[in-house]
């Protein structure tokens, strides 16, 4: 499949007040293909948020290049490229600009000179896509966290982006809000073929991705399918990451001396193995 976004040897350092440079991202290269769902994980301070800022041109690499649709991102093409990127950030309360839900979704459209008639259609469609039809005139502060993030996603979708970037978009939500957003992303991907790049701590979300990039100390420490990444077990924990519940329980069961055939990512697999190999008699 064709490439939509790639990093090629990207490094970036922040300068502190004492003129010391802190290397936040070091020689990172990867390619995201059309229609993929990619999760970027890593502990706090691993460089993954800097990576997000580099991908949307809030920062520019010191060396290397960020390529969007095969073109290196520069200050000159930034605005053109950004119109193809939808971004949703962590805090649902910090990204509301409109007084009502529909104003908020229309904000970017208005900035980009979309006609009033077209705007109405696109706002309606975007809100319907995120399951928020009927909330057009609601005030944002009356919505739940999950609803706010869905409206933020609608705002991003209204621009018909090719790539949706989520920067810890579910980390401040309660479990229900989190499930709402993850369910929405799953649906959107099957209906629109949108490319999704999600920076996240949520392991259950990571399990749904096509590929996972693990960041550690500014470097790309590992990449692969969720299963291949989680199979590395304890090594992941060294990177400050957790393992999915079923895998943690598999490890604990092994510690008690219970033989298990394989590693299990899902609870269903594990409970089935317990049944077939230990309790089915």
């Amino acid at each position, binding site marked *: 499949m064709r490439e939509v976004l790639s990093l090629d040897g990207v490094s970036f350092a922040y300068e*502190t007040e004492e003129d010391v440079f802190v290397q936040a991202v070091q020689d990172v290269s990867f390619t995201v293909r059309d229609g993929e769902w990619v999760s970027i994980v890593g502990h706090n301070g691993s460089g993954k948020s800097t990576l997000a800022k580099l991908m949307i041109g809030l920062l520019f690499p010191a060396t290397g290049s960020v390529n969007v649709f095969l073109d290196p991102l520069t200050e000159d093409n930034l605005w053109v490229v950004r119109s193809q990127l939808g971004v949703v950030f962590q805090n649902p309360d910090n990204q509301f600009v409109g007084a009502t839900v529909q104003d908020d979704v229309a904000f970017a459209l208005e900035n980009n000179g979309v006609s009033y008639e077209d705007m109405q259609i696109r706002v309606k469609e975007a809100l319907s896509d995120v399951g928020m039809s009927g909330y057009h005139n609601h005030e944002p502060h009356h919505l739940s966290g999950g609803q706010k993030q869905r409206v933020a996603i609608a705002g991003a979708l209204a621009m018909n982006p090719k790539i949706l970037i989520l920067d810890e978009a579910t980390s401040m939500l309660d479990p229900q809000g989190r499930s709402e957003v993850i369910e929405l992303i799953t649906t959107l991907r099957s209906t629109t073929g949108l490319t999704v790049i999600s920076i996240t701590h949520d392991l259950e979300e990571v399990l749904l991705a096509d590929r996972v990039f693990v960041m550690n100390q500014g470097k790309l420490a590992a990449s692969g399918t969720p299963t291949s990444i989680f199979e590395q077990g304890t090594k992941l924990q060294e990177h400050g990451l957790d393992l999915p519940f079923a895998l943690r329980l598999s490890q*604990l069961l092994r510690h008690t001396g219970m033989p298990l055939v394989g590693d299990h990512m899902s609870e269903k697999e594990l409970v089935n193995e317990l049944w077939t190999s230990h309790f089915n008699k």
Partner: protein
Amino acid sequence: MNFAYAPNTPFEKKALHDINASIKSGSYTAVIGHTGSGKSTLLLHLNGLLKPTEGTVQVGDTLITSETKGKALRNVRRNVGIVFQFPEHQLFEETVEKDIMFGPLNFGIPEEEARARAHELIEMLGLPKEVAKKSPFELSGGQMRRVAIAGVLAFNPSVLILDEPTAGLDPQGRREIMELFERFHKEEGLTTVLVTHSMEDAARYAEHVIVMHEGHAVLDGPPEEVLTDAEQLAMYRLELPRSVRFQRDFERLVHHKLPKPALTEEQLAVMIAELAKEMGEPK
């Protein structure tokens, strides 16, 4: 007790309805409920930041009513420390040491004593010694949070209230902070109240659970009862803790009950292994 925002005005908004609950000295209580359930409003009553519109809140020897004035509330605040969500947003001093000392100095603790306590806390919270003289804003997010927590522990509260203390941290940071509170709870004999979304943390750490829903305290009891009732929890838009959910699926499939609710995955693993042994290992 009841609480309404802007009572007796056209904008009156009832937030807490007829709450009856008691928290034992030295216990670890978890308050759970989805966003907007009233759990944060409830916790603000525990140190007198809000006063009940009707009814009473008693903290130690102090009775708080809608009429209670500053002095009594000050006494309550001296004993009840709150770690708010994203406490690092409240850091403001030039150095970490000064920031941690701010609360104690305000409560009239002598400067040298406050400084000694600050240094002790820096060590207890696993921060490098050198941070004392640094600006809190030069630290990493996880370190900043520890400094903010130290600022609350600095005046030796006997009750510690934690409002989603691990929000925004990575899994390792979350575990470290929760273990830290567990240690303080035990070593300092604190009464701990944890407000959380995490059913797993409530199950692992608490001995008493209160579920809030639409401003009502709807469930109240030990975790073995409150956190194992899937139907009740679903009514309040909550899920079973993962270990309990797995236990339920497991018991259904193998037609055997484990001896007690599995509040942590470690307990779950041990009970499953023991059951397997009892039933005889497979050939």
